[in-house]
């Protein structure tokens, strides 16, 4: 019955209580939302590459290698010679190896040269393979397979011609050798969606007349002649490696890192990601901290609201006291009200978050390539909500203690 009366008391002050609950709900939604985006972003990063044991590139930082080879963020400082690549490929431990050659672009999208093995071995989101629909894989020298975002952004369909630009954000076009869209990769939620994939030989072919990063003036080798040439690349940007047995990963990694002919670096994608999180972690902590402060602000608002209601409720407390309620009951009543408000706020916040998530998910995916999962609330969220409710109880102790003292002083004889 006391619980029912507490509910009744809240209902009787529906407007102020409603606003307070709304403030708590918004703050909880923000807090959980930040948490959701944070874990979503991590999961999305972690989902981008799976099944690859080592990534090999020229010696730089492991995070940098990871970023430019898998996420197409930043650039390689150096290349890996074809000779080194072949030495690695020849190792016993190596099950498969896929070369990657980056450097050119098409509009705002990067062009990646690779071998058909890429489509076989690149796996994302726990082992899913790429699917080319519609169209087919790389067949002809001038075939290109494009990611879903490339197709959507530029309106390409299979068999459309595309021209690759030299370098990134450059005005020099490889317009003498146009490509054909051979296939479009179904949406993956990874950087592959924003990549134009061609064969390694094609990368070599469009640079036939180029030296030291510039086109030789007046030279233009006819396409027919290029097709007859040996288009084995001299260097690649990086390579993805799968080993036969996971136990061999570290041995192979050491061998590559100590490769005498050229300074190379091999990293385990998982470890490199860990390193990345350590860097990003600070910003994440700041974000979580800010959203936690918003929750604290909402709870402070609630405390202020309870404080300001105390005066007009002295009469009510006198009634409770006259009926035999100990001052402790008054204190408990106010804490109970705060807990009810916080619980309502937390639940409403959760509902808000899931509602907003359901609506905004496709938009977030389109804008940031971030697919947030709509999982049921996990243990983490529940703990978060419990923490909010606990903090509310704690915060309400301040006005509750004041009410306790007031009711001791007033007794049951308040004249208002």
């Amino acid at each position: 019955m006391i619980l029912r009366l507490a509910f009744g008391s809240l209902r009787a002050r529906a407007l102020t209580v409603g606003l307070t609950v709304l403030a708590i709900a918004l703050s909880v939604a923000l807090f959980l939302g930040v948490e959701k985006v944070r874990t979503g972003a991590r999961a999305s990063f972690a989902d981008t590459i799976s099944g690859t044991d080592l990534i090999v590139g020229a010696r730089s930082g492991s995070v940098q290698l990871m970023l430019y080879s898998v996420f197409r963020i930043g650039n390689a400082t150096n290349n890996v010679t074809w000779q080194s690549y072949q030495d690695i490929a020849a190792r016993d431990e190596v099950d498969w190896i896929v070369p990657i050659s980056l450097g050119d672009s098409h509009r705002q999208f990067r062009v990646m040269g690779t071998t058909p093995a890429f489509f076989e071995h690149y796996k994302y989101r726990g082992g899913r393979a790429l699917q080319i629909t519609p169209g087919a894989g790389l067949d002809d020298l001038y075939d290109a397979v494009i990611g879903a975002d490339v197709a959507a952004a530029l309106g390409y369909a299979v068999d459309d011609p595309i021209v690759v630009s030299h370098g990134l954000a450059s005005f020099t076009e490889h317009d003498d050798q146009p490509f054909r869209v051979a296939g479009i990769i179904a949406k993956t939620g990874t950087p592959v969606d924003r990549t134009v994939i061609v064969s390694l030989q094609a990368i070599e072919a469009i640079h036939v007349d180029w030296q030291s990063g510039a086109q030789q003036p007046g030279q233009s080798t006819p396409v027919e002649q290029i097709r007859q040439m040996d288009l084995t690349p001299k260097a690649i940007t990086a390579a993805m490696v799968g080993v036969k047995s996971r136990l061999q990963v570290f041995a192979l990694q050491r061998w590559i890192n100590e490769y005498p002919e050229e300074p190379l670096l091999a990293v385990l994608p998982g470890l490199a990601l860990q390193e990345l999180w350590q860097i990003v972690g600070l910003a994440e902590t700041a974000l979580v901290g800010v959203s936690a402060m918003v929750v604290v602000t909402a709870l402070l608002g609630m405390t202020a609201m309870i404080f300001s209601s105390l005066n007009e409720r002295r009469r009510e407390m006198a009634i409770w006291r006259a009926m035999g309620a100990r001052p402790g009951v008054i204190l408990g009543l106010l804490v109970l009200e705060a807990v009810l408000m916080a619980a309502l706020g937390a639940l409403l916040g959760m509902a808000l978050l899931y509602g907003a998530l359901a609506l905004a998910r496709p938009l977030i995916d389109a804008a940031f390539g971030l697919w947030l999962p709509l999982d049921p609330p996990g243990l983490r969220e529940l703990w978060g909500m419990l923490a909010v409710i606990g903090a509310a109880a704690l915060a309400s102790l301040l006005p509750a203690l004041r009410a306790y003292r007031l009711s001791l002083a007033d007794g049951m004889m308040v004249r208002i």
Partner: protein
Amino acid sequence: MPESSDLHTPAIDLTGVEFHWGRRSGFSLDVPRFQVARRESVLLLGQSGSGKSTLLSLICGIVTAQSGKVTVGGTDLATLRAGARDRFRAEQIGVIFQQFNLLPYGSVADNILLPLNFAPERRQRAGDAHAKAGHLCQALGLPSGLLASPAGRLSVGQQQRVAVARALIGNPPLIVADEPTSALDAATQDNFLGLLFEQTAEAGSALLMVSHDERLAPRFDRVLRLEDIARIERAAA
């Protein structure tokens, strides 16, 4: 009926009571001797601000005297700790205020049953408390079906009658009323007092009412003036 079955134990017995609100407030209340017998109805007359409320607070165990003895139904309140005094009040005393007696957000039934939450023995005495609340409402002339409606919607007269029902539920041996009629018009007053006396007699409770209104006097067994039983001092402010 409650524990002390001795019918000669007074409902209220104050002896040599001295009370002051803190040292500097300048207000003090001395009651050499004041008694209310069981089932007796006593009207205590005094102007507002004359210390009536302080006296009621002493009797209800909300405040404690610095010296002297306050005994209610044979129990010396000074021997009880604060929590036990609150429980004692819930068990033994029905309180009716001048006005604003009810929690406006609770139903009429909630309000009537409220003291029983803090008084398990009184709850037991009441038996089927909900049915008892219904009977009391009926006896007090409240429309049936009122039990479920929110107390805040009732007229002042109805609210005061609900307050009487709340004071009487579980038959506490003492009813304390602080100017319960001052918010009512003359006609309603008379009707209200009739019902109050009738039900208090039925419950077998003693009634101590404080008021400034001498016209109420004829109904009571005994009428006293506050200044006759108490010496009150206040600093010239």
